[in-house]
């Protein structure tokens, strides 16, 4: 467990935690953090206190979250243009909006966030129906989706997750961590519930019917 970490000076704890998040290539989950903190070799460091070593094991998560909050307070208070955000079920450094908007005016940054309608549709289908094959995507969209799927693969928003045991053994696709990062969601459960979307769509369809009738009456009146 992370007793050795907890016995360190709190300022030092925060620095080590900040290092882990800063150096991690992907959003790092709280479980990965706890695991890594457990495995780091702190033998050269002599403990300064043991005030926190009494924290119950099931409170470790909360304590780490508390430290991350404190780091974020420090980052804002000292005018750093970035902070730690929670995305893809993990923690990652990202620019604050008021500074990111300057980058957004530069094409090399802006273009990365550009998606065609077809790409968004295809991503939506893959996000809900994964693992899904290209023919299955095409059935829903009613149109050839080869190029779109390829460009999503190329942008690392989807990945091959296997092959389906049907004729031709087509690839099955699923979404990536990059997808969660770009769209700023923690996990697929944060997407709208499909049944709710269905009722919404059906209600919209029926309301159109209503509008039509009202329009008709208006015209008559």
């Amino acid at each position, binding site marked *: 467990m992370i007793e050795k970490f907890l016995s360190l000076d709190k300022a030092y704890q925060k620095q080590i935690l900040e290092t882990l998040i*800063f*150096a*991690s*290539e992907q959003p790092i989950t709280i479980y990965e953090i706890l695991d890594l903190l457990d495995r780091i070799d702190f033998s050269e460091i002599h403990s300064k206190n043991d005030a926190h070593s009494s924290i119950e094991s099931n409170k470790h998560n909360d304590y780490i979250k508390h430290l991350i909050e404190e780091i974020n307070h420090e980052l804002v208070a000292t005018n750093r243009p*970035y902070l730690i*955000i929670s995305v893809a079920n993990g923690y*990652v*450094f*990202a*620019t604050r*909006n*008021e*500074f*990111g*908007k300057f*980058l*957004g005016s530069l094409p090399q*940054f802006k273009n990365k*966030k550009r*998606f065609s*309608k*077809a790409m*968004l*549709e295809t*991503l*939506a*289908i893959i*996000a*809900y129906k994964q693992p899904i094959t290209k023919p299955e995507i095409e059935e*829903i*969209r*009613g*149109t*050839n989706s*080869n190029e779109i799927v390829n460009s999503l*693969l*190329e942008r*690392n928003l989807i*990945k*091959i997750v296997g092959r389906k045991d049907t*004729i*031709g053994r087509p690839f099955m696709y699923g979404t990536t961590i990059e997808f969660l*990062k770009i*769209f*700023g*969601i923690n996990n697929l459960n944060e*997407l*709208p519930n*499909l049944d709710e*979307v*269905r009722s*919404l*769509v059906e209600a919209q*369809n*029926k309301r*159109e*019917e209503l*509008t*039509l009738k009202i*329009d008709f009456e208006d015209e008559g009146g």
Partner: protein
Amino acid sequence: MYKIVLPIFEGPLDLLLYFIKRDEINIYDIPISKITDEFLSYIKKMQELDIEIASEFLVMASTLMEIKAKMLLPIEQKDIAEEQDPRNGLVQQLIEYQIFKEVSQFLEAKLEQMQYTFYRGIYETEIPELSTKLKTFKPATVYDLAKAFYEMITRNENNLAVQSIKTTELKIEDAIAKILEIMRTEKQISFKTLCQNASKPVFVLFFVAILELVKQKLIYAYQSTFDSDIFLFLTSKFQNN
């Protein structure tokens, strides 16, 4: 008649939804005859403008005409089973598509929220290594791997134009016999499966053999879209022999 600029439709479903929205059509009671005419006139316009018409538009056109024909059947038949409205399948497909269009708007909104969020660009901890290697070392996915291989073999094709081709061991007759032998047990097979692990000359040989078999009407070949796999089936002529 006036000019408007339209984004190209994502497909026939997208086009149908456009008509439905524009004309405030009740999706549960689509005037099939009117919408079929609109759909066909759109295709005609594409033809006039010399735009290549994707096969799915033609498939949808035939589906619409089929529904239209069924709708014209005598009323008493329609009464027998109300739920078998010939439009049902199409309506379900349109609603399913609407659902994902709706979700894609949610994704668009999330994207909007994230438009000014940029992640840290480089994650490297071994800095001395970074200074010398980073420019040439790039993260790679399985697609980069495949692309590297593809580019290498196509490069070799260009560079080594004169390749010794060892086709002598195999003749067209052999390839035909081989295909027929496989198809006797398999009944149908895809071209890719047939040519699995085949070298390029053998691949070509198989292809020529298939053309010959099709010509002799012993097999027929079917391809769903231009770049999809080709499936081979035995014809009745073959089965009768």
